[in-house]
């Protein structure tokens, strides 16, 4: 049959175990005594961009945080179920959280550079790991900044404060900071909500480049962004996963009425 356009995206059911980056099984999370995630089952594909969409308070961020156990910063936190990454359940007893978090990078809504130089910001994680070899640090910083498409802009002022960078540069610095640890998975929690539209597009393009090296999960309030940037999209509502499929189908022919209502702006 004649094919005018190439599609490399597999449908959700076709994802094999080897292609799965994060395998979430029966995950339930209570925060402050409230059920925030209810029985989530999702297989997030490797080296693809998965977007989590849904209303505020639907549990997107909580789901994202449960991938690197950031939920546990909240003292009133309960969790059941399993999250399998690299053939191990990260909620097992022996898991070392700090090591886990070096393998799963995270970028937050607002850029939160440490009040240090650009260089120190990028190698913060490595220093925590106890890396002191100057040459290794230099190499990692350069590689991370290049991967985050920031190297050309900051190479002459690596030792200036990170605070003088613009919002978009800071957010790329945050990505570089996470990349310096060479994570397998990068979690992005509304990475562009504090940025202007053009900067947003640059970050999105960067995210698109990054899927060559890691699995990306993006939480976003911006439906257009989810549509633009993601390969797969999951729609959540009230702590439940309503629909998970490749974004081409989700944004053109959603399977569930609820999804359709949400993405067409008919909700509630």
């Amino acid at each position: 049959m004649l094919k005018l356009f190439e599609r490399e995206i597999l449908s959700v059911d076709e994802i094999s175990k080897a292609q799965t980056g994060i395998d979430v099984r029966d995950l339930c999370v209570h925060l402050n005594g409230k059920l925030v995630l209810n029985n989530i089952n999702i297989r997030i594909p490797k080296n693809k961009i998965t977007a989590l969409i849904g209303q505020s308070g639907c549990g997107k961020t909580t789901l994202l945080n449960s991938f690197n156990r950031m939920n546990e910063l909240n003292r009133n936190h309960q969790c059941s179920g399993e999250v399998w990454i690299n053939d191990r359940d990260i909620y097992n007893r022996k898991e070392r959280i700090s090591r886990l978090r070096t393998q799963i990078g995270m970028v937050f809504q607002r850029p939160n550079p440490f009040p240090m130089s650009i260089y120190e910001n990028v190698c913060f994680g490595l220093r925590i790991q106890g890396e002191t070899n100057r040459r290794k640090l230099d190499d990692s910083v350069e590689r991370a900044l290049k991967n985050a498409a920031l190297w050309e802009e900051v190479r002459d002022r690596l030792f200036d404060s990170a605070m003088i960078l613009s919002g978009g540069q800071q957010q790329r610095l945050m990505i570089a900071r996470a990349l310096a640890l060479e994570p397998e998975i990068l979690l992005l929690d509304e990475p562009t909500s504090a940025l202007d539209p053009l900067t947003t597009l640059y970050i999105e393009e960067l995210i698109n480049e990054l899927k060559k090296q890691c699995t990306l999960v993006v939480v976003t309030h911006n439906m257009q962004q989810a549509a633009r940037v993601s390969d797969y999209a999951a729609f959540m509502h009230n702590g439940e996963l309503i629909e998970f499929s490749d974004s081409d189908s989700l944004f053109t022919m959603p399977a569930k009425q609820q999804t359709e209502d949400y993405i067409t702006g008919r909700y509630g």
Partner: protein
Amino acid sequence: MLRQFQLNYRQALSETASLLCASIMLIFLVSMVIFIAFQGSQYFVPKSAYKVSITFADAREEVFYQTSALSLENVKAQFDSRYLGQFLAEPENTPEVSVQLAEEVYQVVLDSGRVHFGQFYALSSMDEPALPLSELDNLRDTVALLQISLQEAQEGRLKDLHERIAQLDRSGVATDAPARDALMLNFNRWQAHVFELDRQIQKYRMQFKQADGDLISIALNDLDYLYQPNQLTLTDKIGFTFSKIWQFVSDKPKQASTTGGVFPAIFGTILMVILMAVAVAPFGIVSAIYLHEYAPDNRLTGLIRIGISNMAAVPSVVYGVFGLGFFVYTLGGSIDELLYSNTLPSPTFGTPGLLWASLTMGLLTLPVVIVSAEEGLKRVPTGLRAGSYALGATKFETIMRVVVPMASPGMLTGVILAIARAAGEVAPLILVGAVKFAPNLPIDGEFPFVHLERQFMHLGVFIYDGAFHNQTETQSSSLMFATCMLLLIIVFLLNISAIMFRHRLRDKYERV
């Protein structure tokens, strides 16, 4: 329409009222500073001397009088008003006062701080009864040489001999032993020599004629300096002022804290404050870190916070009493029993002293440090902590590498504010170790060099004491005001440095 008018009216009223309050406050503040600065600076500038003749009904009195008043009339008015009060019942007896500028008069200041006024009468050396005033410097040099040889004899010989004799006495040598006799002979010879030198020194004298014609004689050895207050040129006056300022910050108080300097008080204050900061800073900051970062967010923690806030409101004299009861008597008493039992019953640490004063002030300023350190910790955005955790940092690493550096402006401000508070505090210090006059500094060349058990002088206490005991004497009250000014400057500088420090660090650590 009316409503609109009322609104406008109310607006204008509230604006005026708030402006009024703000300006009144400002006027108070400025006038206080100006008052203190004016009164305090009186201590340093040279003042004119006047000859005042007072004619009573039955007697006549003449004095030299030094005052900062600018004209003769003002001086006369000062005296008139003084006598007006005294002779209220018999106004016909009110004395006649006449004032004239005492051009030739000398102000003579002795080493002890005593001040005499008089016209130069005579200068006498050992063999010349009357010499011109121009010989003064030569004679003073001679006296100084004599003084040096006297000191050598005293320190080098007499002391040594005296010790050796005392040693012999202690070892039970008979009073008529030949060795002791020889020493005794020697000792007596040197003592005679010293007496002779002293007699010679006392021969060098100066005589001044006072206002009423009486002569006073002053040994040159006792003389500190003399000058003619009404003959000073402008350069002289400036030089005089600076030398007075230098004396103020480097000399010790004289004449029962009416003149001289306040160096021991500055030294004691600074040392006490440093010791306090060393004690309170780590303690307060670590407590704040625990309270903010580790303590569970429950009712007990809330109670502790309220307790700390209330600690800041406790009257400072209560801390003084606590320091006296706990630190001095209980803690100090125990230390004495354990370590200094051989000197008991005379106490070493069981008496008010520098260490206890520092600790008491530390306790007093602890809430300031804790509250502002916690304030600083609170200002660290949660996003930064999350960022640190997300990079694999543990809680301890996050606190050490991210939170504490960012909270350091708040912490340092707290410490500086605590220092400023301790520098100005009086009541508790009187109870736990600050005294109005301490002969020895807490740090000197005597082993173990730092004497934390010693009592010390403190600027605040010095002012307090001066205000109480010297209200009548203009000279001494101006010393008190000068000290006030110094204290004000120190506290202002500390506060300003706290603010600047905070700004510098905030620029560094917080986003622009």
